């Protein structure tokens, strides 16, 4: 898992098209549809069929992929191993999601509470990381001395698996919950520092020349030029951070216990409810996907048709 964290720390371009997930492909297909009336006179061969073709092209491949996944899963389950097949998991999921927010005391909470509590931890840890990391990124990007000074520290600490910091968190905070949040803080902070710093360093010289010619105040430079210019980079940093944090929280909670989706997975393993583990895998995947898509949407809102 630590390998995945390191790889995802790299600065990724905003318009990375690699994330051609089903959700995105389907949403892009909608505006493609041409106005029926306008196209009808010169194109007698029905735009309706083209719309259908467009929807088909957008929807079919992802559905085929999901079907393939389920088929492979069913085949693996059918070979006689102990992995439950799609049907039993589906039945278990129906029961589970009938009441996701039940509360039978702290050790028996619905899956909804577990997901929310993990999200809360990620939110807090990530929030602190943003509060520290973004200003630090600005400072590193703006002053070459700070860059030279802090670069070796970041290079040294960044490759460390966040889980290695968990004992330190336990030692300092004496409690499991803040220790898990601390782990999220540590893993979220690097992409944010690095991307913000890169963004500041890549503010086009033209814009800085405008600032110099207009002799703008430092406040105006920050609000009107630096911040909007760095925002797309910052959002990339945030996206990578949240992705990593969501990877790490599951593992951290497995170690710390309490309430949370990671702990829930471990608990269900101890109860030998393997169906629930598979459900948890899907839930973790879907939540991660939604977080990513939301931040991509946000990033697109703030990219100014780069010329």
């Amino acid at each position, binding site marked *: 898992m630590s390998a995945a964290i390191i790889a995802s720390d790299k600065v990724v371009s905003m318009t990375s098209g690699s994330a051609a997930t089903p959700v995105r492909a389907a949403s892009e297909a909608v505006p493609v549809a041409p106005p029926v009336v306008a196209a009808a006179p010169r194109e007698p061969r029905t735009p309706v069929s083209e719309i259908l073709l467009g929807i088909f092209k957008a929807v079919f491949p992802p559905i085929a992929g999901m079907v393939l996944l389920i088929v492979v899963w069913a085949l693996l389950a059918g070979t006689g191993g102990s992995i439950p097949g799609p049907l039993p998991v589906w039945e278990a999921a129906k029961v589970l999601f009938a009441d996701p927010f039940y509360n039978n005391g702290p050790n028996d909470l619905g899956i909804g509470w577990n997901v929310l509590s993990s999200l809360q931890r990620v939110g807090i840890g990530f929030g602190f990381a943003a509060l520290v990391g973004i200003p630090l990124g600005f400072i590193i990007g703006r002053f070459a001395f700070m860059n030279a000074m802090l670069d070796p520290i970041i290079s040294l600490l960044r490759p460390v698996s966040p889980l290695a910091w968990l004992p330190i968190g336990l030692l300092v905070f004496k409690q499991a919950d803040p220790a898990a949040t601390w782990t999220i803080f540590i893993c979220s902070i690097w992409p944010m520092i690095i991307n913000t710093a890169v963004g500041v360093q890549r503010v086009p010289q*033209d*814009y800085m*020349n*405008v600032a*110099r*010619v*207009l*002799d*703008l105040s430092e406040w*105006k430079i920050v609000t*009107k*030029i630096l911040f*909007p*210019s760095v925002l797309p980079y910052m959002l990339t940093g945030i996206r990578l951070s949240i992705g990593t944090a969501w990877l790490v929280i599951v593992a951290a909670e497995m170690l710390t216990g309490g309430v949370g989706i990671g702990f829930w997975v471990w608990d269900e393993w101890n109860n030998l409810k393997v169906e629930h583990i598979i459900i948890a895998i899907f839930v973790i995947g879907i939540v991660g996907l939604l977080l990513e898509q939301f931040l991509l949407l946000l990033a697109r809102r703030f990219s*100014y*048709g*780069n*010329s």
Partner: protein
Amino acid sequence: MSKVIVKVEHAGMTFETKKGKFVALRDIDLTIAEGEFVTLIGHSGCGKSTLLNLIAGLTLPSSGNVFCDGREIAGPGPERAVVFQNHSLLPWLTCRENVLLAVERVFGKKEGKGKLKARAEAALEMVHMDHALDKLPHEISGGMKQRVGIARAFAMEPKILLMDEPFGALDALTRASLQDELNGVMEKTGATVVMVTHDVDEAVLLSDRIVMMTNGPAATIGEILEVKLARPRDRLKLAHDHDFVEYRAALLEFLYQKQVKKAA
């Protein structure tokens, strides 16, 4: 002779590079009077943009002095507005906000919000961009962006307007219409302009004086041509004007006979 706005005295510019010192400019002496339109022309790499940057204060000369209005230039400032080749509009601000940013800087302390906004809009109207006040730069064409860039510079009411190949990135037809636009604005405002170009027709059409630069490295002023064509100038009539053709020929002679550019 009218008031001197910019004075360049024995200015030279040497850049430190990895291969050692690179002398870009040497022995530049130039005086620009109020209301004058001066173009700097020369082959690429002759340091004409470097000279413009010296006047803008974006770079400081390694020898000699540059004065604006009697004071030595120590850095850039809004009294020397620059129109950049690539327009350099801030992509997250609308046309109006881009101009307003400059207007606020210059007049913000003395005037109210409404007056500042009116100034920005008047400047955009002058370059016929009042239809796109609330558009973002990526929503308008390259020629329109440059119009907004010009409006931004004029709105600051600078002592001198510095233009670094402002129409270089535009197609010939758009360039012609912007040249006419600029000529019109010049007539209305009587602004002082220094413009870098490598377009011979553009130089003759717009200038009062054309400063011809020798080839770099260690470029300097080769010749200065006074253009005494009556204003307003009409590009159609000028095409057959004897003097215009003579000026043009003089420029071509300098650029392609006296300063032959080695095959790049």
